């Protein structure tokens, strides 16, 4: 065991190494580049592959190829790069390949800027690429989780043979915090479906093509059932001071950190407020939000996007209680004080 101060981006690679990720393929982009740089530094001396690809598209397809041989493989990027990777993510979902992708979200649309935002929620959580598929999406809010959830991402990707995405913002990637590292037991399944160049797997096929309508519908239904299993089994979230709350704030990533401070500050002022932080953005923690909707007066969704997360919250609340949006964009990150001030203007609250 060791405790080390490091950026979230570096912690991702620490997790990948502990999870026995054998290959990293990437392309530089701020604010995600330290992930590739850390992999470049650590992977080769461990006998693992690091390769800077010619493009984001090439990188994701290299991951596709490596994952098809049964090894754990990953890539990382930021919004504009993730847009380009959508092709390979859709193909991986279609071919049921376990891959891990990290998105350190920056400001958009287009070139936008490199400041933290959460505007990639739709493109990552709702699919992004073509066709009927889902990504398993994990949302860390500290450097330790950047490590731990990367390990979990590999495990879930393998368990369900599906892309798993770490969705973090620029601050979670760039922030340094202590990370406890230890060699831990990693769950790794057999992969008899892989194409690894041995007589054992000779004749195996990794493919996403199903030319006949009947056959493709069977495949899509198979994927759909798998996603239902993921929804039933893999929801993760954190609740903070919600038991007696009149208001529940909902946020993920760096926003959840700010919300946590806001909750403490508002509680000192007598506002009964709590927080639900989704850790899995897909599957979404619908049930707990639905349950809390019975007792709270309202929900406030705080996000660095113009109303993306709020759609999933509204689907969970089903109109039972008001759901308000608090948003900042463009790289503007709210202070805890700003969030406290919107709580104070609640009707009936001084």
């Amino acid at each position, binding site marked *: *065991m*060791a*405790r080390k*101060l490091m950026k979230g981006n570096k912690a991702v690679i620490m997790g990948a*190494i502990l999870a026995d990720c054998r*290959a990293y*393929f990437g392309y530089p982009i*701020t604010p995600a580049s330290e992930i590739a740089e850390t992999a470049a530094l*650590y992977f080769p*001396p*461990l*006998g693992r*592959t690091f*390769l800077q*690809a*010619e493009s984001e*598209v*090439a990188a994701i*397809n*290299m*991951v*596709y*190829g*490596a994952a*098809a*041989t049964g*090894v754990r*493989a990953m890539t990382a990027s930021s919004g504009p790069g993730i847009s380009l990777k959508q*092709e*390979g993510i859709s*193909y991986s979902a279609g*071919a049921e390949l376990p891959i891990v992708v990290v998105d350190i979200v920056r400001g958009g649309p287009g070139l936008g800027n*490199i400041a933290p935002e959460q505007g990639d929620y739709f493109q990552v959580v709702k699919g992004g690429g073509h066709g009927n598929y889902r990504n398993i999406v994990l949302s860390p809010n500290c450097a330790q989780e950047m490590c731990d959830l990367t390990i979990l991402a590999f495990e879930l990707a393998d368990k369900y043979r599906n892309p798993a995405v770490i969705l973090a913002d*620029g*601050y979670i990637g760039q*922030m*340094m*915090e*202590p990370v406890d*590292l*230890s*060699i831990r037991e990693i769950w790794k399944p057999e992969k008899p479906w892989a*194409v*690894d*160049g*041995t007589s054992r797997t*000779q*004749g*195996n*096929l*990794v*493919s996403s093509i199903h030319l*006949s309508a009947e*056959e493709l519908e069977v495949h899509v239904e198979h994927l759909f059932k798998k996603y239902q299993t993921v929804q039933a089994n893999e929801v993760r979230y954190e609740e903070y001071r919600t038991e007696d709350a009149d208001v529940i704030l909902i946020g993920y990533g760096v926003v959840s*950190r*700010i919300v*946590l401070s806001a909750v403490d500050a508002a509680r000192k002022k007598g506002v009964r407020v709590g927080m639900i932080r989704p850790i899995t953005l897909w599957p979404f923690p619908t049930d707990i939000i639905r349950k809390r909707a019975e007792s709270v007066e309202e929900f406030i969704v705080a996000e660095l996007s113009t109303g993306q997360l709020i759609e999933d919250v509204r689907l969970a609340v089903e109109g039972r209680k008001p759901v308000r949006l608090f948003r900042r964009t463009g790289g503007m990150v709210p*202070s*805890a*004080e700003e969030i406290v001030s919107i709580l104070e203007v609640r009707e009936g609250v001084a």
Partner: protein
Amino acid sequence: MDMVVKEKAKSILDQYKYKPGPDKESTHYCPGCGHGNVHKMIGEAVDELGVADRAVLMSPVGCSVFAYYYFNMGHIQVAHGRAPAAATGVKRAQPHTIVMSYQGDGDLAAIGGNNILQAANRGENMTVFFINNAIYGMTGGQMAPTTLLGQRTSTTPRGRTRANEGFPIRVCELLASLEAPVYLERVALIDPKTTAKARKAIKKAIQMQVEGRGFSLVEILSPCPTGWKLSPPDSREWITKNMLPVFPLGVYRDRSKEELPPVEEPKLETVAEALGIQTGEAATIPKPSAPLRETVRMKVAGFGGQGILFLGEVLAEAGMQAGHRVTWLPSYGPEMRGGTANCHVVISSERIGSPTVSLPNVLVAMNRPSYERFVNDVIDNGMLLYDSSLIEGVPVPERLRSYAIPATQIADSIGNTRVANVVMLGAYLGITGIFDREQALNALRLHIRRTQLLDLNEKALDAGMKAASPKK
């Protein structure tokens, strides 16, 4: 056209199990199409080299998207044009595999143009079979990058022109401009003689990979009677008449005779070594020290190049080593390259929520613009440290506990302006006593990349601690 009767290759399946429909014995290709011939040659070559169990065939998008129906090998079906990238992933992950990408002209030279160029340039130890039939066959006969000038296709209904579509791309010639490829040859399926050459080239291209030589590509001028709307015999004649003048046959690169450099086995680290994880009793988790009186919410700001981020980093490290919770958040990106820099440091005995410090209780200002930008954000009775060598004649708010530290001047006097940041760190420690000298030095040691600068930094720390004296 091929008169040599051979036994069916073992690596070609008897029954095409992946092929839908009741007919599991005939291919899906049109009469007179070149794919069947090339498949057969690949099967024979793989048999002869004895690598069927190690073989991985990358099926592309195009008519040969279903190449996996036919071979008893491993199959990976890939996105349009991406076979060289995916094959790179396969080969890097499993170097013992024999990876073959099978690509048409649109796949390889249009949408996948950069992928093939870069895989060739890296010298990936893989084999590419490039079927050039000057047309998109599968999608109904649209223009390919190798479509000839004047050739009519469904998207060049009046014929390809240099003015609108430009010239056909010559892939072998293009790749031959790169250093890395070890074998490049263009062959054609016209008559028994050219077909025999094609067979030889296909085997050689796989052989090169088996020997570990690097990137090989065989370009095969191949008939597409359906796409060209010609009979099979006329198609072969069309290759001779129209394609050969533009795509001359021949060997464009052959390094089969060169001696291979010896392979060095690298010395590998263990995960514990690489990550610096000690096991068992020697585990290094700092013990929590006495709780802090209050959470430090600090902003450090100054010019890019003054070591602003470093100052914050060392403080956060010292905080962590003392067993506290810490966060360090930089301004990142272009801001780092000139202009202003700042970072937020939180040191606390409690779980840290927001890592952003909007209302600091400590401001360390290292230049005037930073001072002016942030001084009003500091909470009442908060602490202000500023570099008085660079910030002169400013109104210091009465509501703050202010310390003027001539950090740059002190740094100059000990020989290097650049350690003004560590002077300031020393001053902060001197004033607050939050960490002792040893703790700060330990943190410095962990974060200084050039160890020869450690003495200088130690001097700067001491000078700063000495200089810390309240001024109101």
